[in-house]
C-alpha cells in the first residue's frame, strides 16, 4: 500500500534528454509529480511526452538529466526494474494474452503457488475478485481476455498495477479509444487511486478531461519542458497557446502560388467505422493541410483514395478521370503520388539500393520494349537524387543506411519522378532533423508553385498552419472544419480536431 503522505514528491525528472542518432526526441524534459495528485502531461505529437514516459518506464535510458523516485536517484535498465520500483504504465492499447482468462492475465509471470508448488487457482481467483470489487467494476475474472473492450483491458492493466502496489501510475492517452461512459468510469477509478495516495500522470489531448480530472498540468513543446501550473490557475486558451508556442516563421517558407482548376476530387468517400462522407477538392497550386489527432482517420482517407486501402462507397477523380478503387498502379498512372507516413514499412525498401528505390514507381515507364536497363535506372536516379540533394556518394548505397531525412528525400524523389499532378504527403517531416525539415517544406512550396496539387497530412500544428493554403480538420473520420489560411488559428484547428465545442458524444 502507498504509504507516503499526500504532497510528497513521488517522481521527479529534471532536464532529461534523449537522442536517437541525429534525431533529438527529448531535449530537456522535466516533470514533478506528487503523491495524492493527478498530473496532466500535455503537448503536441512529437513534443516528447512518450519518450519521457518510456524513460520513466525503463524502456529507454536518458542521455542526461536526473530522475528521482521518492527522493532517490534511479537509473532503470529495464522495464522490470521500473516495475519493481513501483512504476506502472497503462498504454492506450493494452496488450493482453487474448486466449488466457482475465485472472491469468492479471497474474502472468507471478502466479501464486500452493504448497505442492502448483499454481494456486483459488487464491488467484479470490484476489482478482477482491481487486475488481475495490475498483468497483464488474468484470468476470474467468472469462478470456479476448473480446474485452479496450476500456476493460485498461482496467485489467490498472488492477495489475494495484496488485503490484504501484505507487506511480502513468496513463498514456488512455481515453483516446473510450466512449463517454467508459471515460467517466476510468476517471472515477483514477480519483479513487489518487485518494489512496498514489501519484498519477494523465496524458491526453482532450482538454475537457484534463481540466475535469487533474490537479496540476505540465506543458511540453519541441522536446522541452514549458510550464507547470495548478489546473485552477490556467485556462484552456492558456494551455493551447503554450502548446503551439513558437513563431510560425522561417521553418515554413510558404510561397504564394496561383491556384488553378480542381485536380483531386473526392466525393462521399465512406469506409464503415473508419471514415464517413468525406468530400475533398484540391486545386492546382494549392497545399491543403489535413489536420487532426493521430488516429482521426486522415491517413486512412488518403490511402483509400490512392487505392492501397479499400473503401465502401464514394468516388475519387483526378483531373476528371475516375480512379478505380484498390489499384495504386492505376492511381499512379492517373497522376497520383503518396508519400506514406511509415517510411520504413511502406515508403522504402530498406535493403534495396537508392537507385532501385527511386525508380520503383516508374519501372514500367523506364522500360524500352519491355526491357529495363541499369543505365536508364541509374540516369534517372542520379537526376532525382541530385535535385533533392540526397546525401550519399554512390547510388547503390542501401536505403536503410541513410539518415531519416535522406531516406525521406529518396521517398520524395521516387514519387516526384512519377511527375504527379496530385502529391499526397503523410507526416512528411516526422522523425527528421530541423534542417531537412525546412528543405522539405521549401520543396513542397516550390512544387505547389509549379502547379502541383498537394495534400499534406500532418499532426504538427505549426507545420499545417505554416504550409497550408487551406486547412481541413478531421475528427473521428469526419471532416469537422474547413478553414482558409486566414481563419486557421491554432485554437480554431485544435477545437475542431478535439471537437471540444461540438456534440462529441
Amino acid at each position, binding site marked *: 500500500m502507498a504509504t507516503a503522505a499526500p504532497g510528497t514528491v513521488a517522481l521527479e525528472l529534471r532536464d532529461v534528454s534523449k537522442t536517437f542518432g541525429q534525431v533529438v526526441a527529448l531535449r530537456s524534459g522535466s516533470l514533478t509529480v506528487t503523491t495524492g495528485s493527478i498530473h496532466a502531461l500535455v503537448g503536441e505529437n512529437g513534443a516528447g511526452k512518450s519518450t519521457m514516459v518510456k524513460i520513466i518506464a525503463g524502456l529507454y535510458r536518458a542521455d542526461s538529466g536526473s530522475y528521482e523516485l521518492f527522493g532517490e536517484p534511479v537509473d532503470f535498465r529495464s522495464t522490470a526494474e521500473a516495475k519493481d520500483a513501483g512504476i506502472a504504465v497503462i498504454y492506450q492499447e493494452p496488450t493482453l494474452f487474448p486466449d488466457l482468462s482475465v485472472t491469468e492475465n492479471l497474474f502472468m509471470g507471478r502466479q501464486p503457488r500452493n504448497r505442492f508448488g502448483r499454481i494456486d487457482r483459488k487464491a488467484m481467483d479470490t484476489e482478482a475478485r477482491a481487486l475488481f470489487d475495490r475498483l468497483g467494476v464488474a468484470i468476470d475474472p474467468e472469462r478470456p481476455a479476448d473480446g474485452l473492450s479496450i476500456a476493460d483491458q485498461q482496467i485489467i492493466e490498472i488492477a495489475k498495477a494495484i496488485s503490484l502496489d504501484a505507487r506511480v501510475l502513468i496513463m498514456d492517452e488512455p481515453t483516446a479509444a473510450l466512449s463517454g461512459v467508459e471515460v467517466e468510469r476510468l476517471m472515477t477509478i483514477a480519483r479513487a487511486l489518487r485518494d489512496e495516495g498514489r501519484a498519477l500522470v494523465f496524458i491526453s489531448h482532450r482538454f475537457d478531461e484534463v481540466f475535469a480530472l487533474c490537479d496540476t498540468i505540465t506543458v511540453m513543446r519541441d522536446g522541452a519542458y514549458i510550464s507547470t501550473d495548478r489546473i485552477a490557475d490556467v485556462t484552456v486558451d492558456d494551455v493551447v497557446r503554450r502548446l503551439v508556442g513558437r513563431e510560425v516563421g522561417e521553418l515554413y517558407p510558404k510561397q504564394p502560388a496561383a491556384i488553378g482548376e480542381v485536380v483531386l476530387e473526392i466525393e462521399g468517400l465512406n469506409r464503415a467505422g473508419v471514415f464517413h462522407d468525406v468530400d475533398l477538392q484540391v486545386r492546382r497550386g494549392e497545399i491543403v493541410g489535413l489536420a487532426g489527432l493521430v488516429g482521426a482517420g486522415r491517413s486512412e482517407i488518403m490511402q483509400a483514395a490512392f487505392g492501397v486501402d479499400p473503401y465502401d462507397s464514394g468516388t475519387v477523380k483526378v483531373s476528371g478521370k475516375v480512379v478505380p478503387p484498390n489499384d495504386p498502379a492505376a492511381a499512379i498512372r492517373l497522376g497520383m503520388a503518396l508519400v506514406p507516413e511509415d517510411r520504413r*514499412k511502406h515508403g522504402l525498401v530498406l535493403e534495396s539500393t537508392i537507385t532501385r528505390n527511386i525508380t*520503383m514507381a516508374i519501372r514500367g515507364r523506364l522500360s524500352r520494349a519491355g526491357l529495363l536497363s541499369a543505365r536508364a535506372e541509374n540516369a534517372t536516379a542520379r537526376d532525382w537524387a541530385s535535385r533533392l540533394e540526397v546525401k550519399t556518394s554512390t547510388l547503390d548505397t542501401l536505403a536503410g543506411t541513410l539518415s531519416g531525412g535522406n531516406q525521406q528525400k529518396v521517398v520524395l524523389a521516387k514519387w516526384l519522378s512519377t511527375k504527379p499532378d496530385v502529391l499526397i504527403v503523410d507526416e512528411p517531416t516526422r522523425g527528421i532533423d530541423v534542417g531537412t525539415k525546412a528543405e522539405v517544406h521549401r520543396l513542397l512550396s516550390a512544387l505547389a508553385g509549379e502547379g502541383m496539387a498537394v495534400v499534406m497530412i500532418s499532426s504538427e500544428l505549426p507545420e499545417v498552419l505554416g504550409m497550408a493554403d487551406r486547412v481541413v480538420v478531421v475528427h473521428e473520420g469526419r471532416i469537422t472544419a474547413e478553414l482558409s489560411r486566414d481563419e486557421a488559428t491554432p485554437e480554431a484547428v485544435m477545437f475542431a480536431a478535439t471537437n471540444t465545442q461540438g456534440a462529441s458524444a
Partner: protein
Amino acid sequence: MTSLIHPSDSETKQVARTYRDHQRPLWQRILFSRDVAVWAALVVVYLYASATVPFFDRPITITYLLLDVAPILLIALPMTLVIITGEIDLSVASTVALASVSFGVLYDKGTPILVAALAALLVGVVCGAFNGFLVTTVGLPSLAVTIGTLALYRGIAVGLLGTTAVTDFPDTWTDWARGRIGESDIPSIMIPFAVLAILFIVLLHFTAFGRGVYAIGLNEGAARFSGIRVERTKLLLFVLTGVVSALAGIYYTLRYGSARGDNANGMELQVIAAVLLGGVSIFGGRGALPGVIAGVLLIGAIGSALRLADQTADVINIVTGLLLVVSVVGSSVLGWVSSKRRRRGGPGAQSSATSPGTSAPGVPQSDTDTPVGEREREDR
C-alpha cells in the same frame, strides 16, 4: 526558382551533387558475388572429381548428369522467382507426377500424344493456379498451402494409375528425350532449358516485373504502395511454376519411358536445396538465376561423382544436406559479420552488404535506424 519537375536544359546541366553509380568497379561486383562463388565451387568439384573419380572425366558422365538434373534445372527457374517473392512451392514434384500420369493415361486411352502433352501442361497450369489462388486470394501462407497440395496432387496422381504404369510411348519421343544435340555430348533437353533459362533471366533481371519480384520479397508493403500488383505477380509465378513442373513431368515420363504416380518423389526438396545453394534467400528478396543454375549443377555433379565412386544414395543425401546447411548458415554468418563491420564503420564497411546474396536477410541496419523507427512510432 529552379523548376523541380520540368527543369530546362540549362538547369539539368548544373547538377549540385555528383554520384557514382556503384561503390565498387564492375569486376569486383561480379567477382565477389555469390553467383561466381557457386560457379567456382562447381568448377572445383568438377576438376577434383575428374582427377580422382574413375570415369568421371568421360563425356558420357556429362550427358547423364545433365539428363538427370534436367527436371530440377527446369523447375528451379520459376522456383527462384517464387522464393524471391518470399513464398515457396513444395508441390512441384507432385505436380510433376500428376502431369506425368495425366500424360500417360491420356496417351494410353488413345489421345494423340501432342494433345496429351498439351493437356498435361494444362494440368500444371491448374495446379499452379490453385496454389496461387489459395495464397493470394484466400491469403493463406504458401508453406501450408503447398504442403497440402503436395499431398493432394500426389494423391490424385497415385489414385489415377494405382501401382501400374504406362510405359509404351512412341520411340521418336522417348529417343528425343534421351538423345543428344547432333554429335555433341549435350542432351537435347538442354535446348528447351536454355530457351527457358534465357526467358527467366530476362524476366527476373531485366524487366520491370523482375524489379517488382525483388521488391515484394524485401518489403511487400512498400511494393504495394509503389503500385506493384503483389497478388497478381505471385499468382502468375505460381502458375509459371505449375506449368514448368508439368513440362518437367512430360520430360521425366519420356526419359524413363514410364508414367507413374510415384515419379519424381521428393524432388521438391532437391529443387529447393539447389535454389538456396545457388544463393537465393529463403526469406525472399535476394538471389540471382545464374547462381541457381550453378547450384543445381553443383548438386548434380557431387551426386554423380559420389555414385561413380560407389557411394550409396544415403551418402549422397548426407553430403547434399550438409552442403545446403553450410551454405545457408554461411550466408547468415557473412551477413552478420558484414553488419558488424558496418556498425563499426570499419574498412569496406558496406562492401559485402551490397552484393546480393552475401548478407543475410533481416540483418539490422546501422545503429541509428532502429531507434529512429521507434521514435516514429512513439506517438501512436
